[in-house]
């Protein structure tokens, strides 16, 4: 299998005044196409920074990041946005839906930034929402939806541009166990259809869904374990 994401000797240093904080240190990590991996670690372990770097939301201070074979560590912000919108779908703990847009409009938004026509956007957004069992909620605003429904809209949005990678940051953190299971089962089914899933979490119960777990501590990978049966 090809590597979809490869992180080579990546460090990220934050400067606050005169103090330097090294959030990740000489990180090496690679994810193959179609894998389901988890990045685990307690808070302060560099999990969020790793996720930002993998998701191309942030650039490394040192090292290289390859996305689908392309070095993205020196791209400008616009190029990065373009790649991010096309190749990576994000799912956040707080759902992060745009409050002033309906479910359908939220799902259509990533396609707008890829220059897809309004007609196609609407068609695909409807299809995705139907697939996630939200046919009746398409024209509802986020504040009219339950947490579980909001997260399913967010999943539909993450899938809008048919990205190769789904990056889920504590996706069940704000959900009850029932809705949490629905979300994880859906991620698993996406993985079966060939999508690469990266799950960032501190919850060991979620990790069982992943084939491979990267354990992070103090900005470094402490160990890598495998769940393969």
């Amino acid at each position, binding site marked *: 299998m090809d590597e979809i994401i490869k992180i080579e000797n990546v460090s990220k240093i934050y400067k606050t005044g005169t103090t330097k904080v090294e959030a990740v240190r000489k990180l090496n990590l690679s994810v193959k196409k179609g894998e389901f991996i988890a990045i685990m670690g307690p808070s302060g372990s560099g999990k969020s920074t790793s996720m930002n770097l993998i998701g191309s939301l942030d650039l490394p201070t040192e090292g290289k990041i390859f996305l689908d074979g392309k070095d993205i560590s020196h791209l400008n912000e616009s190029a990065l946005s373009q790649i991010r919108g096309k190749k990576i779908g*994000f799912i*956040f703990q707080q759902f*992060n*839906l745009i409050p002033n*847009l309906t479910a359908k409009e939220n799902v259509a938004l990533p396609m*707008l930034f890829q220059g897809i026509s309004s007609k196609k956007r609407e068609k695909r957004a409807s299809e995705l929402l139907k697939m996630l069992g939200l046919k009746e909620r398409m024209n509802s605003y986020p504040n009219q939806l339950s947490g579980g429904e909001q997260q399913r809209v967010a999943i539909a*949005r993450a899938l809008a541009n048919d990205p190769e990678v789904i990056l889920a940051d504590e996706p069940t953190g704000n959900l009850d166990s029932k809705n949490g299971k629905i979300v994880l089962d859906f991620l698993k089914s996406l993985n079966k259809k060939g999508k690469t899933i990266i799950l960032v979490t501190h919850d060991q119960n979620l990790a069982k869904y992943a084939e491979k777990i990267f354990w992070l501590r103090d900005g470094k990978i402490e160990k890598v374990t495998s769940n393969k049966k």
Partner: protein
Amino acid sequence: MIGKEIVLYSLRNIWKRRARSFLTILSIFIGITTIFVLVSFGLGLYFYVNELTTSSSADKVLIQPKGLSPAGLDTTFKLTDDDLRAVKRAAGVYDATGIYLKPAEVKQGGKLKYVFLISYDPKKPLIMELSNIGIVKGKELKKGDEGKVVLGYSYMFPGRIFPRPFYLNDLIEVQGKKLKVIGFFGEVGNPQDDSQIYIINDFIDELYPGNNTYNWIIAKVDIGNIETVIENIEKSLRKSRNLEKGEEDFFVQSFNDLIETYSQILNVIIGFVILIAFISVVVSAINTSNTMITSVLERVREIGVIKSIGAKNSDVFKLFLFESGFLGFVGGLIGVDFGLFLTWIAKIILKNLGYGFLAPHYSPSLFLGCILFATLTGAVSGVVPAIRASKIKPANALRYE
């Protein structure tokens, strides 16, 4: 990319923060209304002044006193028949006539009013060629019309000068003598001109006993050499009045130059007033900028989300620019409508007060210009906040609470 979702997103944001949006729009529309009102009245005045200078006024030259007092009230300055002859003698002058302008006591019943009386030679009605105003009722003055008078427009209406209107063949008491009304002039549009009364020069000594002298001389001249003719008249008058060059107590000016002088002064005043209106727009721009900065700060997290799903910096920039431009556009639209309403009311009020010449002039470019200007002002005010929004780093923004 400005697509349907972005437009809806912006519009709903404006609506969600409607109290603040309303105040922002209010500040823009007040500025635009002010500009609209001032420019439309300014244009109206400009066209009015332009209408005064017609082809029939282009060949007229006016000789007037240089003093500061209004014509007719300056008792030290006198233009005599000798001066009139001197003007006529000047090369390039085809004809010339003397005009008297007198304050007149006019009575209706027990009511007394002071107005201006103009006296002219009916065989040489050069003064009538200067204005476009003709007789609207009755007839003009002719030679031999001693004891007769033509009245200004306002005398036909009750309450404007006297409680009761005058009709043809009525008698009106002027300077203690009863004169017969034989005609009325059309509307000039300002209270002074419309309250004037007109008699013939042959009758002036009877109405104003004593030595009467002209207040103006109007000359009809060779239009091709009007500057040279003016110099000729000045030379000829200096000789007849026994004055050295530089000592003139009169000045000779072509009618169109005179109007030009007025319109230049007018332009300066209008320009100054519009400048003040622009300041109010600048204030509204600062206000819009403030609104947009607040709006950016409130939406840092949303900006992070939008960027994480693929929005480029330029997309975020356009989004905020669209929002502030839209605020400006709405402000402009309301401003123009409100301005139209105000000028419409002002026009009616001014007309009833006898200031019909103060009428707004509307042109499509005024409407479009005001709306475009408001939109641009809004957009420009949004530039700095929009740049700020576009530079927000997604990783930081997503962590922002």
